[in-house]
């Protein structure tokens, strides 16, 4: 066990965990930020996507000891009130079916749009290909990313 001071959603949080603990479980078990989802644990599904200094990262593969001063943003911190253009576009297109993967999809999409204001279909397909949606809402996700790009 070791003590860590982390910057999560703009707040300083202290936790005491084993140094090999993935950020996914620090967020879910220690900080009760359960919007970040467990799907595979091997960076194959994207359900656990968070932002580390603004970049999309699979939190199941990021050990707490690797984080240091970096700024972590989770779905809970993407906006205070669900007003981020990507969240709003997801509502507009009524994207979710079961909804379980959507926080990860939204975190990947918002990181994409932060870098690329006007992504092409290929840009979207490439960026979003690591996020599995078992319900098959891919066409709506694509449309929502485009709407978010327009409204951002």
């Amino acid at each position: 066990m070791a003590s860590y001071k982390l910057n999560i959603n703009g707040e300083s949080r202290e936790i005491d965990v084993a140094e090999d603990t993935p950020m996914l479980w620090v967020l879910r078990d220690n900080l009760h930020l359960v919007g970040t989802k467990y799907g595979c644990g091997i960076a194959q599904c994207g359900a656990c996507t968070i932002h580390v200094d603004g970049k999309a990262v699979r939190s199941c593969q990021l050990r707490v000891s690797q984080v240091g001063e970096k700024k972590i943003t989770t779905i809970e911190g993407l906006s205070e009130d669900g007003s981020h253009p990507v969240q709003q576009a997801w509502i507009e297109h009524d994207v979710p079916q079961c909804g379980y993967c959507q926080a990860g999809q939204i975190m990947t999409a918002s990181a994409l749009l932060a870098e690329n204001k006007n992504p092409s279909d290929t840009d979207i397909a490439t960026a979003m290909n690591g996020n599995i949606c078992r319900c098959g809402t891919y066409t709506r996700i694509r449309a929502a990313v485009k709407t978010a790009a327009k409204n951002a």
Partner: protein
Amino acid sequence: MTNDINHKRRSFIKVSAAAGGGMMLGFNFIACKEESKIPDFIAPNLSEPSEWTTLNGFLSIGDNGVVTIMSPNPEIGQNVKTSMPMIVAEELDADWNQVIVEQAGLDTENFERQIAGGSQSIRHGWKNLRKTGATARNLLLQAAAAKLDVTIEELTTSKGIIYHEASDKSLGYGEVASLAADYTAPEEIKLKDPKDFAIIGHDTRNVDGFSIVQGKPLYGLDVNMPGTKIAMIVHPPAFGMKLKSMDDGSIKSMSGITDVVKINVEPEGWNPQWSDVNAYPELVAIVGNSTWEVMKAKKAIKIDWEGETALENSVDHEATMTKLLAEQDGELARKDGDPDKAFADADKVVEKTYTAPFLAHNTMEPMNFYANVTADKAELIGPIQTPMFLEGTLEGVLGIPKENISIMMTRMGGGFGRRLYGHFATEAALISQAVQKPVKLVYTREDDMTQGTYRPAYKVTYKAGLDKDGNLLAFGIKGSGIPGSPVFENRFPAGAVDHYQVQNIQVETNISTGAWRAPRSNFIATAEQSFLDEVAEAAGKDPIDFRLSLFDKAIKEPVGKDNDYDAERYAGVLKLVKEKANWGSETSGVYRGVSAYYCHNSYVAQVLDVEISGDVPKVKRVYCAVDCGIVVNPMAAKNQIEGGIVDGIGHAMYSAMTFKDGAPEQSNFHNYRLIRQAEAPESIEVFFVDNGIDPTGLGEPSLPPIGAALANALYQAVGKRFYQQPFGNENDLLG
């Protein structure tokens, strides 16, 4: 969390309902006020009433007009949590913007058929949900009539307001709700004319949508009750093996580990139900303080396993089916005319065999459940499609009477049939009972994928006899699978062919199998519709015209009596998709396939366009015509259809579960391939038939036919027929 709130509320309603003899009396909600706080992220513009009146098990109305509607059925992503309350709200004539939806727990007194399965929630609930809303509206009208001193016939309603036109007076539902509880509803309640629907048939967003996009705790894995320990199971590495011995000393001293126990979900003398499918009743459970600590202990524990029954190989399983189909007559399920003679007389005979592998469900949220079992009580919270069956299983396994068992359903991160089989909930309960602590059982993805109730492998041989003009004389089907053939003997083309025969052959396995989205249909539709495409080609006919001529025969001179479809509606969706896809027009570089199927009481026809992009065929567009009767929520219905199409394309192209010496060869998404964003169609256009018929299934019917639309388009693109799923595994996809 909200589950707990719902649970308390549900208990309260149950007690009240019993006291009122079904229809409820007014009650004061202030006692439960704290728990009733309206979550503002669901309905930001709602204010909290100071008093609630519960009119029946589904409905409470606040004195300010806010309406709470309970959603009785498990929500797995099929959107019943929105669509079922919409039906109640329609007949209540409520203002949907003033409605709060709450998930109900298992409550067999107030609700019927709390199951997510068979695409039957709306079809089964349709009349009762309407009647529930209409009954409550009638009570409100009776109270308003008394208050205004007029007759009920003089009153009208709209969006939660009661109007008396003659005196220009109006009353909000909230103003008469507490009075309404004193009235009794008549037996016969008039329902709305569908043309007057103000909520049904209108695009309505998912009631949980705003919570989902903000990452609010909604799912079983998000349950966080005080004092809960994390539990994980270790199951045998192969089907056919069982626990021999374990050395828990190796992990008991590890950080955060509190308990290591053995459990058995099938105690001696206990009779399992259909939902108790489980290949591994005896398991090792590890309990500890955090998920990561328990995961590490799970990797470190030393367990010896031993063989119990055969260790199966998928290649042998398939070879067995091939041999049986080739060498044996199956059990005769249906015979019309004289198929043997007709085949002998035929000018041309086409015979083809189709195969598909085992599939895992792979819900994105792995299996999990919260359980707190004490000496005489069990409280469970989690994702389950069959809570009413789980209750019976728990009673038998735990030895606790049903009345002391509570089950709350969370929103589910996918179902697809996997959560019909609730052994994981029983395991959680047994672990809690054994360690005397509340636990949340969490399956890793590997646990989830390697301890499935898989879609079994199937194989079917089709045979068609054509006369010299290309008319279909005879049709034969011989199917094999687990626990039986995938063939529905009374579905199309039964009834459209004079000489017709179906034979079934059963094969065995010790691998646990069960329902997977559109059971049996998910395979047989692709086989049948691929075959018909090939037969149409052999007959020298357009594939749509060929099918339409068969439906024409089934309409005008149907063969046999038990044909399980309406040929006019079937032909209707084909004609609709033909028109919408502009079938018959040729576009350079675009290759088209068609398919149609009927299941879950609904009709679907699809045209799929493939283009060759680089070296790879790419699905560009899908046109889909659907006849599911009245569409409750078009926006969500389209989403279901789109999802079924993507799901069907993905599994037909990429997915397979195989076994070697009983051990699953796939364990996570690095070696079990699911369809991804870049492989999904660019567009899916959905067209609903508007016929005013009572609604039928929607969660499953778009999946079964799409594999054939794909195979038939691929054939046009690459000149090769596809008989073996997954198609993408064939190295020579491009011929």
